[in-house]
C-alpha cells in the first residue's frame, strides 16, 4: 500500500517541474521563439531560490515563517529565471540570432555560473546548496495529526508549496493563452507575425513576453525539480529542461495535452526508479544493472510516442524564424 502511495506521490512530484517548464516553453514557442535554454533557466532559478532559502534559514526568518519564506523563494526563482531568459530574448528578437545557438550558450553558462557562484559564496569545495528542512510542508505545518493513511502517505511524502502553485499556474496559463487578448496576440505572433504586425500588434514585444514567461515558469520549475530530486541543489537538472521540451512537443503546444504528457513521462521515470519494488514489473534477473533499462524507458517511450504522433504534430508556424519587420 505504501509503495503505491510512494509511487503516486513521486510521480506527481516529478510531474510538477516537467509541467511548469513545458508550459513555459509553450509560451515562448507560441510566440515564435524556440527556447532550448530551458535547462539553463531551470538551473538559474533553482540556484538563486536555493541560495535565498539558505539565506532565509541563516537569518532565522525561514524557520519562523517557513511558508512565507518559501513563497518568496518561489518568486525569486521565477524572477531570476525570467531575467536570465531575457538574454535569449535579446539574442533572438533584437539580434535575430539563431535561436538554438543562443539557447545552447545559455545552457552552458548556467551550470558553470551556478558552480562559480556557490563556490564563491560558500567557500571552496562547497558547490552544493542544502535545502532547509523547514521548506517541506508536513502534517505539522497544516496542523493536522499524523496518521498512517494512504492519503497522508501520498500527500505528505514530498509536499512543497511549488506543487500548489503549479496547479494555479496551469489553470492561469490555460486561461491566459486562450481567453485573453494577450494570449490571442501571442499566438498570432507565433503563427503569422506579418498578420499580427499588419493589425498593429507589436511582435517584438510579444516575443519578449513569451520568452519572459518561459523564464518565469522555467525558474520555478527549476526550484520544483531541485525539491523533488532531493535535499540539495547540485548545479544540474539532469536534462529535465530538454525532457520538458519533448513534453511540450508531445503535448502539441497545448496546456491540457502537456499536462497529460508530463504525467505520462513522470510515471515512466518513477516506474524506472522503483522498478525493484514493484511486484508485477519484469525483473530482468539475468541482466545486470537492469535498472538502466527502466532509466532508458522514458526516453524510448518518448521516441515511440513521437514517432506515432508526429504526423499530426503542428508546431507554431513561425517559430524559430526571426521576425523582420522590413520583410513584407
Amino acid at each position, binding site marked *: 500500500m505504501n509503495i503505491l502511495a510512494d509511487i503516486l506521490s513521486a510521480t506527481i512530484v516529478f510531474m510538477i517541474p516537467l509541467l511548469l517548464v513545458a508550459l513555459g516553453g509553450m509560451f515562448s514557442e507560441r510566440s515564435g521563439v524556440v527556447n532550448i535554454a530551458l535547462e539553463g533557466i531551470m538551473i538559474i532559478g533553482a540556484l538563486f531560490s536555493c541560495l535565498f532559502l539558505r539565506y532565509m534559514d541563516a537569518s532565522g526568518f525561514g524557520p519562523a515563517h517557513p511558508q512565507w519564506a518559501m513563497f518568496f523563494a518561489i518568486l525569486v526563482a521565477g524572477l531570476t529565471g525570467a531575467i536570465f531568459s531575457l538574454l535569449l530574448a535579446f539574442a533572438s528578437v533584437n539580434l535575430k540570432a*539563431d535561436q538554438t545557438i543562443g539557447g545552447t550558450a545559455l545552457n552552458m553558462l548556467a551550470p558553470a555560473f551556478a558552480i*562559480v557562484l556557490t563556490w564563491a559564496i560558500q567557500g571552496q569545495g562547497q558547490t552544493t546548496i542544502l535545502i532547509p528542512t523547514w521548506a517541506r510542508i508536513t502534517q505539522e505545518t497544516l496542523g493536522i495529526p499524523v496518521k498512517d493513511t494512504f492519503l497522508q502517505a501520498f500527500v505528505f511524502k514530498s509536499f512543497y508549496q511549488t506543487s500548489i502553485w503549479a496547479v494555479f499556474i496551469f489553470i492561469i496559463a490555460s486561461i491566459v493563452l486562450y481567453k485573453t487578448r494577450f494570449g490571442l496576440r501571442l499566438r498570432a505572433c507565433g503563427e503569422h507575425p506579418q498578420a499580427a504586425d499588419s493589425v498593429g500588434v507589436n511582435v517584438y514585444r510579444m516575443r519578449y513576453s513569451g520568452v519572459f514567461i518561459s523564464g518565469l515558469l522555467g525558474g520555478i520549475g527549476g526550484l520544483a525539480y531541485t525539491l523533488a530530486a532531493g535535499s540539495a541543489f547540485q548545479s544540474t537538472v539532469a*536534462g529535465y529542461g*530538454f525532457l520538458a521540451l519533448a513534453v511540450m512537443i508531445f503535448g502539441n503546444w497545448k496546456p491540457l495535452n502537456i499536462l497529460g504528457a508530463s504525467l505520462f513521462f513522470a510515471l515512466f521515470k518513477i516506474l524506472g526508479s522503483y522498478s525493484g519494488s514493484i511486484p508485477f514489473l519484469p525483473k530482468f534477473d539475468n*541482466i*545486470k544493472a537492469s535498472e538502466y533499462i527502466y532509466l532508458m524507458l522514458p526516453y524510448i517511450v518518448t521516441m515511440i510516442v513521437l*514517432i506515432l504522433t*508526429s504526423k499530426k504534430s503542428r508546431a507554431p508556424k513561425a517559430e524559430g524564424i526571426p521576425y523582420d519587420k522590413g520583410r513584407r
Partner: protein
Amino acid sequence: MGEQKKRSLRIPGSTSILASLISIGVGLIVGLVLLYVLNAKAAGGAFISLITTGFRSSDKFAKVLYQAAPLIMTGLSVGFAFKTGLFNIGATGQYTIGAAFALIGAIQFQLPWYVCLLLALIGGAIWGIFPGLFKALFNVNEVITSIMFNWIAMFAVNLTINNLPMMLAKYWGGAQMDRTANLADANPGALIPRLGLDVLMKSNYMNISIFIAIAFALIAWIILSKTTFGYELKACGYNRNASVYAGINAKRNIVLSMVISGAFAGVGGGLYFLAGTGQYTLLKQLLTAGFNGIPVALLATSNPIGTIFSAFFVSYIQVGGDAMQPDFVKEIIDIIISVIIYLAAFALLTRELLTRGKQRRQDAALEAAAAPAPEAKDEVK
C-alpha cells in the same frame, strides 16, 4: 527546420575570423572581470596562469594537445553538420556510443587500437542516422530525437557494460565497480600509440591522437572543398531549393551528412578513451564532450582546418583553467566559453544583417520593376 532558420549558421569569408577573434577577446575580458570580482588579489595571477600555462612546460603543452584531439573531432562533427544546414545536438550521444564501441572492442574482444578506432567511427556513424532518418520518415523534430538519443546512448552503454563483466575494472584487479578497466591492464594493445612522444614531452599521456584528429580534419576539409559530394552537401545546406533545381537528392544528402557527423563524434569518443587517461565511468549525466564541440565549431565557422585551431584554443584555456585552481573554480572557463558562443552567434549576425539588408533592397528593386526599360535603343544588325 526550415530554410530561413538555417541562414545564420553559414558564414561567408574572412571577416568571420575577425568576428571569432573579437568574440574570444571579449570572452576573455569577461573572464578577467569575473576573476576580479571573485577574488581581486588572485585575479591577476590567475589570468596570467590562464593565458600562459599551456605553453609553460612541455607536459602542459602535451596536455593541451591530447585534450584538443577529441575536441577537434566533436568540433568537426558539429561543424560538418552546420555546413550542411543541420544542428547536431546529438554529438554527445554519438561520442558516447563511439567510446563504448571502442572500449568493448578493446577490452572485451582484445582488438588492437586501430580496429577499436574504426569501431568507434562506425558506432558514431550508426548513432548519427537516427535524427535524420526519423525526420524523413516520421516527421519527428530532429532536435528532440537527438536529445533523446543522447540519453538513450548513455543508459544503453551503462547497461551493456554492466553486462559484460570483462569490461569492468574489478575484473582486471581494479577496485572500482563503476568504471571500465584501465586499458593499461586490460589491453595495452588498444592504447593509442605513444611513439615516444610521452618521453619527449615528459607527459604520461601524450600520444598520437592529435595527429589522428588533424588527419580527420584534413579529410573533412578535403571532402567539403574538393569532392563533388561535398559540393552537393554544401549546396543543400546553403540553398535547398537551388540544390533541388540542380537535381541533387537533398534527403539522401542530409542523412549522409549526419552519418559522417556522427562518425566524427564517435572517433572523438574513441580517441579520448583509448588514450588511457581515463576510464569510462558509468555516470548518470551526459558527457559534456559533445557539447563542447559547439563552441569549437562556431569559432572556426565550421571550417575543418579552423576547427583544429579553435579546438586548440579551447583546450588551451581549459588547461589554463585547471591551473587556476585552487584559487578559482575551473568552471570559470565554461563561463568564458559560453560567453564566446553567445557572442559568436551575435557576431555572425551583424554580418548576416548587413548582407541581408543589401539583398533586401536589391530584391525590392527587382520586384518593383519586372524588367527595366532600356532608355535608348539602337538598331541591332
